């Protein structure tokens, strides 16, 4: 429990008021700081990267007016959305959505693993918490969809629920595979089971884990409705589905939530399967021995985010080039391809782990 605020200690150790501040206040500040300094900028960077990357694929230029090379484009988009006239009052279903959305997503800020010292909540079930919050988020989005009195909203909401149910099962099984190799679902255990060399990453450990990695990423796309599996939010047929009636502040919250989900899932995938934050060439242990926690935190965070952005790049690439699948094809794919493969990977991973124990 003390780990919640421990990561702040290297930064405030010199300040005089650090002793008198109660623990809960430090924890709260820690959470807010992580949210503001890591999550929101990452969402902005991801939004910008997606536009620039798709422009690169398509021989276009992308945003280049707001700031040098368009880096202030997310700020411009945010300001534009915030100054729009509110479309109407919040009805009770939208209020439920906002509550669920906030609780489900932003509570994961406490759980997201961002470094060996930045683990805010490191319990035995830490790896499962973002997964459950994704399911709860799907429920909230379904409420939002059903709250709109129009066909796009209804169908968007129902599709979100269908995709979430279809994607949850393979995602869970793939998660189990990673945990089996690590021997537990604590972030620190999972990180300890992999280390800095790519050959020791979970995904490279054995072919079953490799399959589990792919299944995990793809079923995350299905669960969260991320392109190319974004039939629940698709534009041509249902005008954005759940988001078709949102504008202004509601749309900002919705979009931030979508970017954050994608980022969250990518971070989890990297930590579980791609070695997490372990710096290459054993730098982690060196910095730990040299007792330089601030540099360690920052470097590990940067390395983790770099790998995450690479994963995001690959997924965006596949999403932009390939057509979108129909929602029943997505759920079909999840139940008939992802689930058998994930079970196969689980059986294989258990056998390998059990063999090692013999």
């Amino acid at each position: 429990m003390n780990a919640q605020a421990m990561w702040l200690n290297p930064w405030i150790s010199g300040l005089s008021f650090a002793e008198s501040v109660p623990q809960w206040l430090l924890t709260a500040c820690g959470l807010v700081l992580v949210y503001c300094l890591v999550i929101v900028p990452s969402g902005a960077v991801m939004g910008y990267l997606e536009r620039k990357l798709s422009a690169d694929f398509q021989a276009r230029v992308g945003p280049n007016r707001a700031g040098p090379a368009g880096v202030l484009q997310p700020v411009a988009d945010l300001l534009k959305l915030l100054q729009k006239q509110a479309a109407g009052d919040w009805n009770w279903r939208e209020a439920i959505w906002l509550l669920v959305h906030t609780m489900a997503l932003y509570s994961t800020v406490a759980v997201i693993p961002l470094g060996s010292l930045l683990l805010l909540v490191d319990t035995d079930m830490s790896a499962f918490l973002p997964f459950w919050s994704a399911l709860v988020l799907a429920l909230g989005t379904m409420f939002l969809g059903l709250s709109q009195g129009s066909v796009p909203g209804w169908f968007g909401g129902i599709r979100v629920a269908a995709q979430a149910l279809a994607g949850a099962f393979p995602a869970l099984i793939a998660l189990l595979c990673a945990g089996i190799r690590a021997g537990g679902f604590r972030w620190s255990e999972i990180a300890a089971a992999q280390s800095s060399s790519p050959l020791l990453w979970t995904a490279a450990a054995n072919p079953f884990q490799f399959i589990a990695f792919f299944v995990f990423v793809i079923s995350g796309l299905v669960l969260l409705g991320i392109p190319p599996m974004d039939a629940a939010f698709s534009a041509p047929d249902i005008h954005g589905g759940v988001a078709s009636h949102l504008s202004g502040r509601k749309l900002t919250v919705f979009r931030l939530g979508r970017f954050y989900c994608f980022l969250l899932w990518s971070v989890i995938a990297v930590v579980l399967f791609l070695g997490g934050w372990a710096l290459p060439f054993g730098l982690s242990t060196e910095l730990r021995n040299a007792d330089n926690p601030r540099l360690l935190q920052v470097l590990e965070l940067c390395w983790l985010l770099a790998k995450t952005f690479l994963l995001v790049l690959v997924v965006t690439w596949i999403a932009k080039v390939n057509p979108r699948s129909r929602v029943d094809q997505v759920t079909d794919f999840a139940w008939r391809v992802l689930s058998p493969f994930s079970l196969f990977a689980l059986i294989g991973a258990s056998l390998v782990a059990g063999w090692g124990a013999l």
Partner: protein
Amino acid sequence: MIESLKTDLTQWEIGPYDHSLPGPMLLRLRLDGELIVAGEVETGFLHRGLEKAFERQLWRSAIPYADRLDPEGAVFGELALCLAAEEIAALEVPSRAQSIRVILSELTRISAHMGYIVRVARAVGSETMVHYVLRDREKILDLFELATGARVSLNFLRFGGVQADVTEGFIERVLEICELLRIRLKEYNDLFTYNHAFIKRTRGIGTIAPEVARTFGVTGPNARASGISFDVRKEHPYSGYDFLDFEVPIGRRESQHLGDANHRFLLRLQEISTSIEILKQSAEAISPGPFALRKPEESFEVPRGEAYIRIESSRGLLGCHLVSDGGAYPARIQFRPPSLALLSVLPQLVRGIRIEDLPVVLATLDIGIAEADR
């Protein structure tokens, strides 16, 4: 919330302005869950009174109006009008002008089919294909500007020939573009034809059976995708097509799901290939000579008579019925647009498909609301 759960059929109206529709039209759907049970089409939102506007124009000034019958295939409208007037007036078109007309027609056909690929890609959800195709289409539009001065509404054909000779370097550019497009067609195949996700989105969707195509008068690439072998360029050749050697692609009868969206898309890719062949032949065989037998500045009046002309536009059989009473203005013109048949077969096609298939069906049919409503 239970009391407000609806379990009967849902009514949904799409249109008249919607980005999944090919133009302004209203689609009234009755949905059972995600399945469409019934659909009604209402058109007329883009009626401009084009046929009446012809009656107020001098003969030469009517050609820009024919351009705007189908803005995506401007040359086809012009060609229909000019051929009809030339038949009434028994005007002979020199062979150089015929070659130029064939070149412009095939370039327009390729450009229209590229626009088609763009619409299908948007409906299916692949934004990248959109930009790749548009980039190549720009080269064709630049070629039009080189030859005629305008990119889309060319206003280049005249009664008895074309308005001016093609500039130097035009023929070389045409041959260059043929080579370029052949390479790019391979890329489009890689991106879509063999792509599993695309095939799943389009196979078996919106199938037009051959009997249905015959009953409703569907022509053009849609009918050929259903296996009906009918191309006006072969059946009633015009403007020198009978001297050209080309194979018209037709859907093979033994393939499964003949006439579905996938076949319609693939057929148009093959048609681009055929058009490239025709372009090469015309460009290489173009003979020096006059580009028109009359001076373009001269005023022209069509003598009394009437004619019906059929040409193969990018969407199908475009018919033009022209009546002249010998005056300075056309007496009556009536176009038979190929998209009208598609609008009448649409209610049958949307029955039984899912909502997500609707943009795919609409896009693969290549309906032109501008020519259907005139």
